[in-house]
């Protein structure tokens, strides 16, 4: 029987290093996979430029077109709520920043814990709404495959275990903290090989879209 403390030490040590390594190498490999495919030269005389419009689209796609939003508000709102909740919990929770600072030598100011706590609740609620939407919206139901549910679980578990750990809702504490870290390790290991990669590739996708349209003189 492994003691909770030993488990915590293991997930914080070896397991964390290994999963972080897989994450970093995996992301690099995935970007290499994409860029190595290349893009054909374009001989058509451009009407506009590529770089600027590409960068612009990276920003503008954060805001949905009004008509589309009206037809599918739940997807947009739940998506916003869970992403914001997740990002605040991840990047503005003081212990997270301290861990980062201890590893990389620099940090940034955190947010007061009640705010982070609320963000985590919003994140959890948002993710539940996303899941409900995926299971009931006819379009999402048809589109969704096993991987969509896998990445949902991978995203949900760190939020849930983090919330339980912070509020000491599981005894012993080292066990739930260890499980929280373990859930993040699963997230890191699978990140490069699943749709979680959209976190990074969407900047590339939006840029290509904006650039290809921009060349033709269309703001996309």
């Amino acid at each position, binding site marked *: 029987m492994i003691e909770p403390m030993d488990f915590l030490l293991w997930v914080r040590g070896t397991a964390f290093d290994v999963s972080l390594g897989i994450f970093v190498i995996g992301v690099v490999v995935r970007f290499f996979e994409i860029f190595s*495919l290349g893009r054909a030269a374009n001989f058509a005389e451009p009407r506009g430029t590529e770089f600027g419009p590409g960068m612009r689209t990276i920003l503008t796609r954060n805001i949905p077109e009004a008509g589309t939003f009206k037809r599918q508000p739940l997807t947009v709102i739940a998506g916003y709520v869970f992403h914001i909740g997740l990002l605040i919990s991840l990047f503005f929770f003081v212990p997270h920043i301290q861990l980062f600072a201890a590893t990389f030598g620099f940090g940034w100011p955190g947010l007061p814990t009640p705010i982070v706590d609320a963000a985590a609740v919003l994140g959890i609620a948002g993710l539940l709404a996303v899941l409900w939407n995926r299971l009931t919206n006819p379009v999402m139901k048809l589109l969704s495959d096993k991987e969509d549910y896998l990445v949902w679980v991978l995203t949900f578990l760190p939020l849930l275990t983090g919330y339980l750990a912070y509020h000491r809702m599981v005894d012993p504490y080292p066990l739930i903290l260890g499980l929280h870290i373990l859930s993040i390790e699963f997230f890191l290991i699978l990140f490069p090989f699943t749709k979680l990669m959209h976190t990074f590739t969407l900047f590339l996708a939006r840029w290509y879209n904006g650039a290809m349209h921009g060349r033709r003189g269309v703001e996309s």
Partner: protein
Amino acid sequence: MSTATLERGLNALREQIDAPVAAFFSSCVNCGMCAEACLFYTETGDPKYTPIRKLEPMRRIWEQEYTIVGKLKKLIGLAEPVTDEMLEQWQELIYASCTLCGRCSLVCPVGNDIAFMVRKVREGMVASGNAPPDVQSAAIRAVKIGSPMGIRLKALQAQIKHIEADTGLKIPVDVEGADYLALLSSMEVINFPEYIESLAKIFKQAGVSWTLCSEAFEATNTGIQIGSTDIARELVQRVVDGAEKLKVKYIISPECGHAYTAIRWDGPNLIGRPFPFKVVHILELLDELRASGRISTKDLSGECVTFHDPCSIVRKGGVIDSPRHLMNMVSTNFVEMPDHGKWNWCCGGGGGVSANTDAEELRTRVFRRKKSQLEESGATTLVTACANCRLVIEEGLEEYNMEFPVTGLTEMLAEHLVIEED
């Protein structure tokens, strides 16, 4: 063309996969927002028409052959192959229910250019023999006869003779050293010869040196619609040869949507080099003539008119402001539809859909989108700048028993043109 086989189809799909495609597929989280941008979904409510789902054959090839995990899954037998049955089933999704209008590409939150990828999937469909028979035969006619509607030079010559006799205007043909070479769509030759007459009238007034080319008058490009680079290249090459022979400085793309995509944006890439001439859309040229004061209009009516943006010219072509300047030149009461410009909804017949009899019923159903847009606009006359949109809209209006005159913008401009006798 060599015989179509599944293997050739899969190879064609592989050839289409580039860095943008990989970035797009890597980014899709199956959120389904693209469905809300597609009139085939909004008007039917059938989730199978969700744009991103139409790309499943190419997505599978990408995943299984261009990603580590996909390769592993394939190795241990977890990958679902792309089969002939699948491609056959996908024909409806790739052809009958996608006009390549590109609205989904503007809506996708992660930035996927879905229409750009549907166009790519069509290459695989053609190579595997899964393109719709109607569109295929139009492509064969285009290659063999020179026009998808089977219109030969004789038919054009007859129309020219008629117009010249009726109006006393001269339609120049094969004039070497003219500035502009005007292209026409078959539909303009047969259904809307008013367009040719309007060009002659406007260009005479503005003093534009122009010509038609007897060897290259057809602007439409079925290769672009069906998704065959080989056919598209051959058709573009004819135009390039004609333009180079006559040593023109410009080619004028006519009031046709996909012809503009074909010659303006895809053309140089199809032949693998930049053009030695410039390509302008007729609306761009007319707008230039307006801005430089070479044409003016009179007797404008106050009747409420609206403009239907052809997807290929506006959203995919970037000719957005010109039609608006010109609309204000022909009417004192121009109003916009609720979604207009780059957000316009397709007429439902682009991308080869209007040539596809399998798509007829669906096309009529999804026309409801345009119908309600028209009703909301409050206009009583519709102006557009694409012969295909025009026919599709006229058919749709008839189907729904709506009295709504539809006209071409160039034609309307010619009607109101101030003619200074010399």
